[in-house]
């Protein structure tokens, strides 16, 4: 399936180019892995070797675990992807392509097919390697392929073609129809049908309307929107223009982006300027009667501002407090006018839907969740990164095939956390859950915006639940008492449990409080805050009980419950543990069993790792 999408259009770019192209991944992950220095080095190498090539920075192709990534495309040949590129490997790679007319097998991950080009023998195609095999790239199709700073790159891959099509041959009703047919549901977590939302905004009275893009992406462990904004910013802009057209010629749009994404903001601003210059934005777009412009508003660090009504309040310069719905933003949004507010990924899908047709989009996915969904795979998993799969793909396939399984071979899977602070943990028994809106809810979590954090047996479930609760408690805006005070009480109980001061009845109390908070909170933050606790009590009751009754943390995470001791029978008296202890807590004499002083031990685990005989537990 990926082949089909790729062959479609993706590589006309290289096709058009007669020069060799060197792509380098320069999204935030790439930069954090040293892509900037590498980029400079490439430019230097290219100059000193006197090569006529194009060096193109690109966004995230999803293999973030392999960063820095460098791709080389020689004219008439497939594009070869290299991973973990270091200065010394770079020279070998360049030698291979430019001096020997081959590729550097040792560092290559795969080859990306270029239509009409010659494949390399002995290197798998992109869609053949496990990481990409189960993926279908629609919304992330251009990410990592094009230069996000180049509007021409975007246009070469069907960019703004949907806009041209709509302006020349479609009515707003037809656009809404197509979106409705596609079955697209909000990717911000709520899953509300996008077509229906647009229609509501369209029908709302008054000529003045607004389009708002929710780029607040506050869920920790989620970076799907960031990847799209950094890798394909124009797709979001095009989606917003199409929304403006559909809801009744909205004239103004806002992108509310969290300030933690400085690179995304920079690239978006450049994209907006370029789009204006080409009259994709501005007055009488492409000669039509549609006039629409965009402004970026930076968030100021409040998670609750991801909630749509709080976001609107913040956009209007107020404290970001949610307001009770109704009125919905479709009726009363920015400056009290009807506004459509959609997530980044939702909007980035629109262009593809218009071009491919609603039916085509709906041919992917499960019964009630159509199309594809991007996920951010993180945690104790081998292939961390960004993936896009048809909705309904089983969790097992995501974790073990695409994700490559656990990072530490010896430590098995324990749970996957889906949906961030509003979601829950799915244990081994739930690995066959198809990941779509409905099925994940039955399994006790939510699909949410797409963060999947994989935990292994060394993680502590109670600590994780506590972590999320602390997060929501910190971020509660304080408007309603159940959320503000209830979550604090729950957090106190969980803290006690992790400190070994848990009591019988604590779990019942947690469940009781959860129910109360869920049904008495104004916005989704409070309404979903207890979910991480409820889902973990459901699946991991024994682990809570181990903390409460036996004062034991099976994952050895909760510091107060960890007591490192030397098992006398297993200790070979080798002494390796003694010098590594930073607090001088290990005593050992030649020929004697080591001993740990728990009153000074800081639980750094250094001795455990140092002991080759697993004598310290």
């Amino acid at each position, binding site marked *: 399936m990926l082949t089909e999408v790729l062959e479609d259009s993706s590589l006309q770019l290289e096709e058009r180019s007669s020069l060799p192209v060197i792509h380098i991944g320069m999204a935030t992950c790439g930069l954090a892995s040293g892509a900037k220095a590498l980029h400079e080095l490439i430019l230097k190498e290219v100059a000193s070797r006197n090569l006529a090539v194009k060096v193109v920075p690109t966004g995230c192709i999803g293999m973030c*675990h392999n960063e820095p990534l460098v791709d080389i495309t020689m004219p008439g040949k497939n594009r070869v992807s290299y991973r973990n590129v270091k200065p010394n490997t770079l020279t070998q790679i360049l030698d291979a392509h430019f001096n020997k007319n081959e590729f550097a097998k040792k560092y290559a991950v795969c080859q990306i097919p270029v239509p009409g080009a010659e494949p390399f023998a002995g290197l798998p195609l992109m869609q053949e390697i496990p990481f990409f095999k189960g993926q279908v790239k629609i919304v992330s199709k251009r990410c990592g392929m094009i230069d996000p700073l180049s509007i021409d790159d975007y246009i070469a891959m069907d960019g703004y073609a949907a806009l041209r099509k709509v302006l020349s041959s479609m009515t707003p009703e037809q656009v809404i129809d197509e979106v409705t047919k596609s079955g697209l549901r909000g990717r911000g977590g709520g899953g509300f049908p996008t077509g229906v939302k647009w229609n509501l905004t369209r029908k709302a009275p008054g000529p003045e309307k607004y389009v708002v893009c929710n780029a607040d992406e506050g869920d920790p462990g989620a*970076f799907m929107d960031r990847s799209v904004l950094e890798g394909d910013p124009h797709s979001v802009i095009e989606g917003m223009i199409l929304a403006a057209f559909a809801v009744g010629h909205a004239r103004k749009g806002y992108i509310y982006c969290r*300030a933690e994404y400085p690179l995304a903001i920079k690239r978006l601003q450049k994209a907006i300027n370029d789009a204006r210059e080409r009259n994709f934005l501005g007055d009488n777009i492409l000669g039509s009667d549609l006039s629409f412009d965009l402004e970026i508003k930076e968030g*100021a660090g*409040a998670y609750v501002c991801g909630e749509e009504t709080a976001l609107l309040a913040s956009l209007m310069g107020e404290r970001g407090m949610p307001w009770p719905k109704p009125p919905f933003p479709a009726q009363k949004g920015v400056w009290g006018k009807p506004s459509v507010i959609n997530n980044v990924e939702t909007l980035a899908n629109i262009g593809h839907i218009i071009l491919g047709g609603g039916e085509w989009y709906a041919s992917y996915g499960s019964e009630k969740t159509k199309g594809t969904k991007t996920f951010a795979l993180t945690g104790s998993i081998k292939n*961390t990164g960004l993936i896009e799969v048809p909705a309904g793909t089983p969790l097992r396939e995501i974790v073990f095939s695409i994700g490559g399984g656990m990072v530490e071979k010896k430590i098995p899977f324990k749970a996957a956390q889906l949906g961030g602070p509003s979601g829950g943990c799915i244990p081994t028994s739930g690995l066959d859950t198809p990941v779509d809106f409905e099925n994940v809810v039955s399994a006790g979590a939510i699909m949410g915006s797409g963060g999947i954090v994989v935990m292994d047996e060394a993680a502590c479930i109670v600590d994780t639940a506590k972590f999320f609760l602390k997060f929501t408690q910190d971020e509660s805006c304080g408007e309603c008492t159940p959320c503000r005070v209830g979550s604090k009480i729950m957090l106190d109980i969980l803290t006690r449990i992790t400190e070994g001061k848990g009591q019988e009845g604590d779990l019942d109390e947690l469940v009781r409080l959860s129910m109360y908070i869920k049904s008495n909170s104004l916005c989704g933050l409070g309404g979903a805050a207890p979910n991480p606790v409820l889902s973990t009590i459901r699946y991991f009751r024994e682990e809570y009980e181990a903390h409460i009754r036996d004062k034991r943390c099976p994952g050895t995470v909760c510091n107060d419950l960890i007591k490192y001791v030397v098992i006398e029978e297993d200790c070979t008296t080798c002494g390796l543990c003694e010098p590594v202890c930073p607090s001088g807590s290990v005593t050992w004499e030649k020929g004697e069993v080591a001993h740990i002083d728990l009153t000074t031990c800081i639980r750094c685990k250094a001795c455990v790792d140092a002991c080759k005989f697993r004598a310290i537990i």
Partner: protein
Amino acid sequence: MSQTKHIEVDQDFIENLCDEFGNREGTVVQILQRIQEKYGYVPADALDMIGEYLEIPKSKMYGVLTFYSQFYREPRGKYVLKICVGTACHVRGAGLLVDKVKEELKIEPGENTEDMLFTLEPVSCLGSCALAPMAMVTDTAYGKLSPDKMLGLIKDLESEHLSASEPA
């Protein structure tokens, strides 16, 4: 925490800002962002000046300022060590990074070092969870950190500061 002298606020700068943004709605957040960009924090004097100039009640200005975690009411260090304590980083040992900084620089989260060189700021997800644990210093992201690498980063920043302040 060190007691640092507050900065003298430039009245013209504030009034220009207000003129630029002022007559439109919903600009308080943006004005505050611009002030913070210039001074590194939002000085109380600046708040008073805007309030007077735009005739916005002081209570409202404070309400907005204190709501958002991104605004600071105190000056901050030259290098703000933003250590991600989001989920993905948490499960990969972000806590150890914070502990290391606390131990090395003798500051608690939210505090500055005496010499105003560093501020420790645990933040929620920086969006590069694939490279957890992550930290960001002046818009540069650092991935796959360990306590030792964190220490190395601090040393690097210290020497960067020294070479920058040396007379040429």
